[in-house]
């Protein structure tokens, strides 16, 4: 797990220069979506396309979690009929997608953001309010 190790090292030795918060985008209602607008603080660190692609993927994943469709209705009805005791043994669809999202963010951090001195925080740790991007100082790079 060399990559995680390097992330941890970086965390312990790097200084945090700033934090940028990507806020929620409510134009489609209460569905969980984040703004794809590229923050100016990241201009020197990462490519705009790359960042917007990450946020777009994240939005798609959340949309999948909250999608109303045949499978979610089926799950809901089944749960209701069993007086919701079925969730003692089974994970909800939303929880499954949240795990997928956590993996996706970990991947993105390892491959794209850590080498550039950035760190994405999973929005679920911030109550689905913001995507927190931590910017580390440049002196920790070049190892």
């Amino acid at each position, binding site marked *: 797990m060399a990559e995680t190790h390097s992330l941890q090292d970086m*965390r*312990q*030795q*790097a*200084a*945090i220069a700033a*934090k940028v*918060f990507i806020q*929620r985008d*409510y*134009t*489609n*209602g*209460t569905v969980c979506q984040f703004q794809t607008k590229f923050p100016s603080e990241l201009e020197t660190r990462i490519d705009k396309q790359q960042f917007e692609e990450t946020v777009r993927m994240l939005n798609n994943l959340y949309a999948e*979690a*909250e*999608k*109303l469709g045949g499978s*979610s*209705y089926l*799950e*809901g*009805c089944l*749960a*209701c009929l069993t*007086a*919701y*005791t079925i*969730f003692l043994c089974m994970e*909800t*669809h*939303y*929880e499954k997608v*949240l795990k997928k999202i956590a993996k996706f963010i970990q991947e993105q951090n390892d491959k794209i953001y850590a080498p550039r001195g950035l760190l994405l925080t999973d929005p*679920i*740790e*911030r*109550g*689905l*309010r*913001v995507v*927190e991007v*931590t910017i*580390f*100082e440049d002196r920790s790079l070049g190892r």
Partner: protein
Amino acid sequence: METLGHKKKTTPRRKWQVFPGRNRFYCNGRVMMARQTGVFYLTLVLIMVTSGLFFAFDCPFLASNLTPAIPVIGGVLLFFVLGMLFRASFSDPGFLPRATPDEAADLERQIDAANGPSGPGYRPPPRTREVVINGQTVKLKYCFTCKIFRPPRASHCSLCDNCVERFDHHCPWVGNCVGKRNYRFFYLFILSLSFLTVFIFAFVITHVILRSNRTGFLSTLKDSPARYPFTGENVVVCFFSVWSIVGLSGFHTYLISSNQTTNEDIKGLWSNKRAKDNYNPYSYGNILTNCCAALCGPLPPSLIDRRGFIQSVTPQPVSHSNGSSMYASTQLHTHMCDQEHCIQNTKFVFQAAATPLLHSDPVMIGGGGPPFPGKSSLGVPCAASLAPSQPSLPSSMPGLGCAGDMLSLRDPDTHCHHHHFPSPEETPLPPGPMPLTLPCAAHRGHMNPAQLYDPASQDSLHEDSVRGLVKLSSV
């Protein structure tokens, strides 16, 4: 390198133990309810007593004379009612966790930038953001307690002291708020309860009628209190329940089919009376989709992670780079610490450490230095454990997390209030923009110790200790 070893021995605490707001947690965080639960117990008692009497006194007759399916159906209905009641009462209705200090600071900056500079004494305009949802303009309000802009349809419940997503109402009968995550349980509870009360009402009446067919109406009534006590009580309770609960179920059925919350309906937010082209932007258009979405849609997870462990403060090596302790401590306190607390903790540290050196008598924390009116026993949720006081301060400190290890010192009154978080209005903040830009670990050097105490003390011994503290503060 010394560490205050007491810290390592304490069991890690769970996040529910430091959750801000007026909630109660049971079963090690699995169950959460509002503070006032008296009416919930009343609900429970009413349901159990009425059903119990029905099963004890009416069912034997009905089972033998009509069909044994009656007690079975009654039992299933009762089981469902109680299941839904417990689910609605004990689960997280959709609380929004409060903003971390960094987020709050960032928002403040944005708001100040938007409002422009204002002189002292000028009251800034209320903080709102406008957003267009499906063609309707919706105002998002800023919550001063939670330090966030509330998502649409969220509201702050004053009884629970938390913002709730898709806030419907606070139900005392259920002993909890009704919000996004438990609205369907609440609805199914009142729906099944209406079926149960109608069921019991109908069969109690049937019982009386059947009996009076045999023995005459008047003699049945005379016999009733003696042989079948509480039949009258059952009838009365069920009669009133039927009207109120069936009425409530009908109202909520209307709300679900139009995808509104009680809160929105009461305020008439989307009614035509406000404006001609006013419509509900959240409605899916047809009744069936609205109902399916509310009742069978995906169940969102709890955002507050009440059973998660607070990551304990692992003593960091004394590094002279700013990053480690700050990052670590900022990480720790996603759910824990308001930054005012951290600032105050650090101040307490300096005062507690400094004042016994400069004065010989033990001093209450908060006594000297910047005044903290009436807050000597401030809720210190960050101090996970209070170690017994150390007689002498080591001159090089381990990285001081906001957990306030040093806070132990001499103050017997400083103890943990788990659920007490003074609101920002109550807490006296240090003046200027400083506190707003400070992350949790206040030892960035902004906290000039000279502001807190006079390091120019006479003794060399004092100087050493003070130097140690100064070094700590500049790390």
